């Protein structure tokens, strides 16, 4: 049977180097370009018919943006709309990476821990920067949950530091693990259905059909979770308890 992790392997397609840094084009990079192209096409086409009565495409785009806007309003309040472009781009990038990765033969960009890690770290760093910019040194108060008795501080502060540091880790690992696991399971079941032959192979194959639907849902949910957690972290930086 084929190695189920085989689809995640990358191979340099166009070797490139920038100031000694290896920036070769591989399948994942091409998928990133595809994602950028698809999202750009979708949203600019939706925009071009920006009439009051929306077309179908416009409805989809507006639905997505409205959804993100609702998320920001819930977690950060109306002030958070300053970050709308960033958060919306993040959501759309992750969502379409997840979805397009489900096309057979395509590559799921978000199944690369470096990719999700870079996003998570970037977002988390930004939330810290925003926090320190708004609240100054007082932002360190985020390490002290409100209502903590003074004698508990020596215990609470290390715990809070750990929980803070866990944020980008959990954020990135959650997305990466979900995407990887889903594809691995799909790969395993496909392998089973092929090696099982007609006699028994239909059984794992029918599972893959059901799982595929589930994966589409997970693609949405994981993009949503990543984005809403981003909003929550930003919101924490905004509204220090």
């Amino acid at each position: 049977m084929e190695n189920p992790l085989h689809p995640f392997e990358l191979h340099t397609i166009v070797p490139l180097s920038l100031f000694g840094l290896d920036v070769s084009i591989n399948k994942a990079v091409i998928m990133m370009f595809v994602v950028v192209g698809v999202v750009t096409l979708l949203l600019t086409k939706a925009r071009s018919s920006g009439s009051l009565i929306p077309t179908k495409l416009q409805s989809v785009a507006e639905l997505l943006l409205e959804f993100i806007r609702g998320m920001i309003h819930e977690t950060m309040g109306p002030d958070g709309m300053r970050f709308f472009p960033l958060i919306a781009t993040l959501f759309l990038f992750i969502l379409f990476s997840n979805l397009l990765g489900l096309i057979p033969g395509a590559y799921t960009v978000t199944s690369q821990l470096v990719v999700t890690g870079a996003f998570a770290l970037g977002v988390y760093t930004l939330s810290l920067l925003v926090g320190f910019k708004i609240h100054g040194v007082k932002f360190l108060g985020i390490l002290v949950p409100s209502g903590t008795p003074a004698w508990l501080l020596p215990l609470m502060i290390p715990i809070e530091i750990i929980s803070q540091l866990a944020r980008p880790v959990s954020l990135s690992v959650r997305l990466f693990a979900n995407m990887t696991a889903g594809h691995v399971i799909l790969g395993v079941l496909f392998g089973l259905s092929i090696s099982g032959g007609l006699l028994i192979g239909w059984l794992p194959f029918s599972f893959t059909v059901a799982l595929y639907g589930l994966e589409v849902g997970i693609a949405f949910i994981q993009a949503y979770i990543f984005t809403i957690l981003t909003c929550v972290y930003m919101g924490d930086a905004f509204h220090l308890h």
Partner: protein
Amino acid sequence: MPQFDVHFFSSLIFWEVVSFGILFWVLYKFAFPPILEALETRERKIRDSIEQAEQSRQTAEQRLADYEAKLSGAAQEAEAIVADAKAKAQRLLEENEQRLRTESERIQAETAQEIERERRKALQDIRNEAADLAVTVAEKVLERSLSDDDHRRLAREAVQAVAAGESRK
């Protein structure tokens, strides 16, 4: 796991940042503002429409209430008019009845008086006539048999008798 192949990290991160940056810039520049604006325009439009509809509804309700009030006022007025007319008619009827009754009573009383007067006059006439007649008849009967003295006496008596009868009445 192939994902931990460090060899590709640099290119992945580099292109991720680049493509994310491009996407961000493109969307920020060309896609988000018009779409968000369209959303807000629609929201505003819907809110306005709802407000307008609410206003129209309130106006309509106000008007309906006004009309109903007017209608019930008119109905009350009509009722009052009818009741008034009825009362007036009743009063007129009663007045007429009263007047007719008193009139008829008066006529009755006058008639009775007239009759009484006529009756008395007739009686008086009859009495006078009867006395004259009696005197005449008596004269005729007694013309030869009575002397002049007798005549005088009898006449006196007759006159007295008539007078007595007159006074008796």
